[in-house]
């Protein structure tokens, strides 16, 4: 991280109808690195992410991307700044994996143009970087969940945007594929100078791979900082209501959490039955 602010969020509020989801969010995202947005269900992680991706349109002057108000972008120009990997991507009809990846070039292609050989090269590089090149001719609906997630990350890469947002990219994957995706993202940050922001549930994976964590609670940012400052027994207890032991991961040196009981201790009582 070289200290350049790439996203500035200033007094962001968001409500679905009268139901407040985000309250007075203030956050600066610096270029480079992986940001993990963590917090309990309903704390506003996805809503915050969708506001940054402008899937939900925030009020004027609450989010700035590269010093420009996010509401000032057209969808096309924003797609060159921010790529977005949704939690689920379902395609109702058959597209080959590579055709799906090539969709990421859309922000650069004019209405009647087709994908150029340059676009195809960019897609090929992205697919090789995400280990999906061998799947290029398969139907996107016939590959596994992990392969699909990698293909969608490849599509996001072809957008050549500086910022990549991911909504819980690993929550539906097994252990092996979780680590694979996180490794890929880590490499992209280093090799492609992308800033990654993701919502994530697994605190241990978040602590291991993220450079900074944003802990959300009830629509507010509870605390933001490096994993060592966030993954702490007292903080976890006050946000999640979970008693846990935090120790040092003997291999990576990152904080590792072992939860053992809920606030009410219902868990321990019922396990004794």
């Amino acid at each position, binding site marked *: 991280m070289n200290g350049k602010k790439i996203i500035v969020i200033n007094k962001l509020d968001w409500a679905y109808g009268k139901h407040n989801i985000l309250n007075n969010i203030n956050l600066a995202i610096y270029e480079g690195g992986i940001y993990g947005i963590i917090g309990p269900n309903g704390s506003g992680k996805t809503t915050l992410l969708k506001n940054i*991706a*402008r*899937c939900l349109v925030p009020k004027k002057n609450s989010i700035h991307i590269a010093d420009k108000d996010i509401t000032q972008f*057209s*969808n*096309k120009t*924003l*797609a*060159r700044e*921010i*790529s*977005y990997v*949704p939690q689920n*991507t*379902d*395609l*109702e*009809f*058959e*597209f*080959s994996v*590579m*055709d*799906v990846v*090539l*969709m*990421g070039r*859309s*922000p650069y*292609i004019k*209405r*009647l143009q*087709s*994908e150029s050989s340059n676009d*195809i090269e960019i897609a090929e590089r992205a697919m090789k970087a995400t280990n999906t090149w061998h799947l*290029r*001719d398969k139907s996107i609906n016939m590959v596994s969940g992990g392969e699909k997630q990698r293909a969608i990350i490849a599509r996001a890469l072809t*957008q050549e945007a500086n910022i990549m947002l991911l909504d819980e990219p690993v929550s539906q994957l097994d252990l092996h594929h979780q680590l694979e995706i996180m490794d890929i993202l880590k490499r992209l940050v280093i090799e492609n100078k992308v800033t990654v922001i993701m919502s994530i549930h697994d605190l241990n994976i978040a602590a291991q791979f993220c450079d900074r964590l944003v802990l959300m609670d009830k629509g507010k940012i509870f605390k933001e900082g490096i994993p060592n400052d966030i993954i702490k027994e007292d903080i976890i207890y006050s946000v999640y209501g979970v008693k846990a032991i935090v120790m040092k991961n003997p291999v990576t040196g990152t904080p590792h959490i072992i939860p053992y009981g809920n606030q009410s201790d219902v868990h321990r009582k019922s396990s004794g039955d």
Partner: protein
Amino acid sequence: MIYVEKRPIIKLILCILILGLLAAVILSATFGAAHISFLDAIRIMVSKIPIIGGLVSTDGLDSSHVMIVLNLRLPRIILSALVGTALAVVGSVLQGMFKNPMADPYVMGISSGASLGASIAIVAGLEYTFSGIGFITIFAFIGSILTIALIYNIARVGSKIPPTTLLLAGIAINFMLLSLVSIIMVFNRNQVEKIVFWTMGSVSSASWNQIAFLFPLVLAGLVVILLFSRDLNLMSAGEETAKSLGTEVEKVKKILIAICSLLVAASVSVSGTIGFVGLIIPHAVRLLSGSDHRSLLPFSAVGGAIFMVICDTISRSAAAPAEIPVGAVTSILGSPYFIYLLYRNKKKVFN
């Protein structure tokens, strides 16, 4: 293979399909009570094409044959082709845009508005024509446009149109208007047959005037829709995805809904509700064209036309001199094929 690599093959297949359409049109013109040979049919048609028409003479041909082909059979064939094109293209667009393989041109309730309009014109006894277009057609057209305007405004949330709301509003209005048609039929027993036959769909009253009304609409609509092919690809991956890849989703949706409504309203008002074309042709041509809308849309246009020309030929000649409603023919031919497609997919998924 990716789309750009497949494009030469796709273009070739499309050319073959277009030749197939021409063959179907000519062949269809030979069917009927008067026996007209394939070559004669070609001569008669080519003689009417500007510029090259002068090279072919119709000397020596029975002048009644020329009249039958040009004034009776050809308008009907061309009209059915245009209706087939419009319905199939609209079906493809709606399936992609709503990300819903069940969507068809009538899903937004337009056809029920047309039926109501036509029923009112029929019971009011409006048998006149206005510059060659019947009042029934005009009423059906107005009915469908009013219906889609109503549904659109019910479904609209601010400046957005959530697809689910639009489809559900369409279904609700569809039921309501069809009930009104039933009530009209109950109180006008002597017109029931006419209304029922109109609803079943037919191009038997085709005229060159109707073609002059439908052709420019279909052509212009198709051109504009083709401009949005890539947006439709992105939208079939979900509206959020399309948006994050640069598509102005709400704007595109409004433009496409407007064009589709116009095309469906225009076709329904000349032909009644012809079912299944708009649902099945997109699924059928996807086997050849793939799901990319840049190829799916032109394939649907040609495929829909071929299917309708064949179905209408069957409808007027299978039980001649009686006529089977073309809507019944499309469904009888279409349903088994649709079930076959389902079966094929099922096998692919579960094996």
